[in-house]
């Protein structure tokens, strides 16, 4: 009996040791939310397969509910994210607003027909903007006719939070998920240091600086990601919901904090707002690295380790 137990323990121990020994860094890139998503995690090959499955499942679900054109207004995942978006809408005094979809359409950002619309068309589009116009009845969002939702400023961060949480729950202790400009990183990097995250410079090649963080999310909103130029003016895709025109006072805003969802939404809110400090006062765990329209670098809110390259 004792011999059997010893053999069993030996086999069990070998399995555990073997599993630990086969742990290594895995990287993969997948296409989600219309962008390339990079994943780097430290685990065994079998766990990597489970991780990929988890990530694909979560991102597919996010895609189904929140991609442009989706008219799901009643599933629990949508209602849940709507509440989170509404909270940022109120805290930012409307600078973050998921009802700006009609502006993106009007300015031609959705179908490659980019142009500066006539002022009266912009005024008409503003009538369909404002999250306070949406009501919730019997577990369904009721939108005014012609209003559309644009989840682009929050759903990616939400998906990254869900995916990274799922990976942590299956025992992956180190890694990052980076979907375009939104990221969550946890544990230590391959050099056993915090993760070094380069922030792209909004106007030239190279980096603005490097964040050294762990167990944190980060997201960037910039005027350089999607834009067109007309008569020497740059028109980009981040709209001020009050004016109907692209927000003009900043080149890029990166927000760092515990939830990527909030980093995502706050980066848009701070980009649009004339008073970003006031918004960050409501989010004491969040900090921002901002490049204003003159190219000046500012850091607001909670300070996270950041080395500038300016």
């Amino acid at each position, binding site marked *: 009996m004792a011999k059997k137990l010893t053999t069993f323990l030996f086999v069990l121990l070998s399995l555990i040791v073997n599993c630990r020994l086969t742990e290594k860094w895995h990287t993969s890139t997948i296409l989600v939310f219309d962008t390339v998503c990079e994943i780097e995690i430290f685990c065994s090959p079998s766990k990597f397969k489970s991780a990929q499955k988890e990530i694909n499942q979560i991102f597919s679900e996010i895609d189904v509910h929140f991609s442009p054109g989706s008219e799901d207004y009643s599933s629990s995942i949508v209602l849940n994210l709507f509440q989170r978006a509404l909270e940022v809408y109120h805290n930012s005094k409307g600078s973050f607003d998921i009802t700006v979809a009609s502006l993106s359409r009007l300015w031609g950002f959705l179908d490659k027909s980019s142009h500066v619309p006539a002022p009266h068309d912009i005024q008409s589009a503003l009538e369909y903007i404002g999250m306070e116009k949406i009501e919730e009845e019997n577990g369904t969002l009721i939108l005014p006719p012609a209003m559309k939702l644009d989840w682009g400023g929050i759903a990616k961060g939400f998906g990254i939070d869900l995916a990274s949480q799922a990976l942590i729950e299956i025992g992956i202790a180190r890694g990052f998920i980076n979907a375009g*400009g939104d990221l969550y990183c946890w544990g230590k990097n391959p050099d056993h240091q915090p993760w070094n995250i380069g922030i792209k410079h909004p106007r030239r090649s190279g*980096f603005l600086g490097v964040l050294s963080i762990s167990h944190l999310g980060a997201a960037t909103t910039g005027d350089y990601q999607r834009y067109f130029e007309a008569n020497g003016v740059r028109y980009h895709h981040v709209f001020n919901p009050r004016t109907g025109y692209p927000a003009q006072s900043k080149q890029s805003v990166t927000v760092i904090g515990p939830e990527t969802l909030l980093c995502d939404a706050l980066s848009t809110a701070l980009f649009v707002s004339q008073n970003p400090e006031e918004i960050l006062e409501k989010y004491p765990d969040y900090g921002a690295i901002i490049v204003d329209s003159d190219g000046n670098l500012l850091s607001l809110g909670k300070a996270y380790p950041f080395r500038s390259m300016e």
Partner: protein
Amino acid sequence: MDRRDFFKTMLATPLLAPLLLASKTTKNDCELYLIADDPQLFIPFLLKELQKFAVPYGRNFTLLNSHPMEKDLKQILFQTGWRYAQKPLQADLCFSFSRLRHKALPSFTLVRDGRIWDIRFQKLDSLWREMKKNRKLSSCLTIASFKKTRLDLQAGKYVSIYKDGRRIERVSLDEYFARSFNTLRGKITARVKDGKAWVSESSCRQKICIYSPPVSLAGERIICAPNHFLLEIQGTHTIDTVIG
């Protein structure tokens, strides 16, 4: 900041020339010169404002020589989340003290890379005016030196090209390279010349990849999502990934 006032005060000391020279040559990012007998009253506000300019990087401070207000200064820094570092090398912020030969009005100045930093448009300006208005003459000069926080990233050595998540090409940045790749959504052309890599043609709709400036630093990348295409510079680097 009124430069004349600053120079008038500093010229009254033997410190100006060596300090400006030092700020050009040392590994400090920025130096704060504060004339005040009670520096602990102003330091927390000044540090908070400086943080907006991404200065400093860490939260460790030290004192390089004995300071008449050492106890109060340490106490206020502890209260605002700073930690004391025994060794100057571990500190992100080093305080030193000098006694002015002639008493001067309380004021402060910031010097970065050997140049006086203009603070007229910031909140710092109102503090400066207030200090000058309400305070009696002081003889205590506190210098706060912030360790350099800027990074010098190296140029990369290779460019790796990924399609559908798999690396399909690795080219030295010293080479001349131009190749088109067929993708699920069409075609994309990558080029390498004079140590830089870029995307010159793409069948994608938004053309973000083409508008991206050429990349050369280790860790930099250009992504074309519709073509599921990634071009990344490789070399000795400290960047794990890039956002923005």
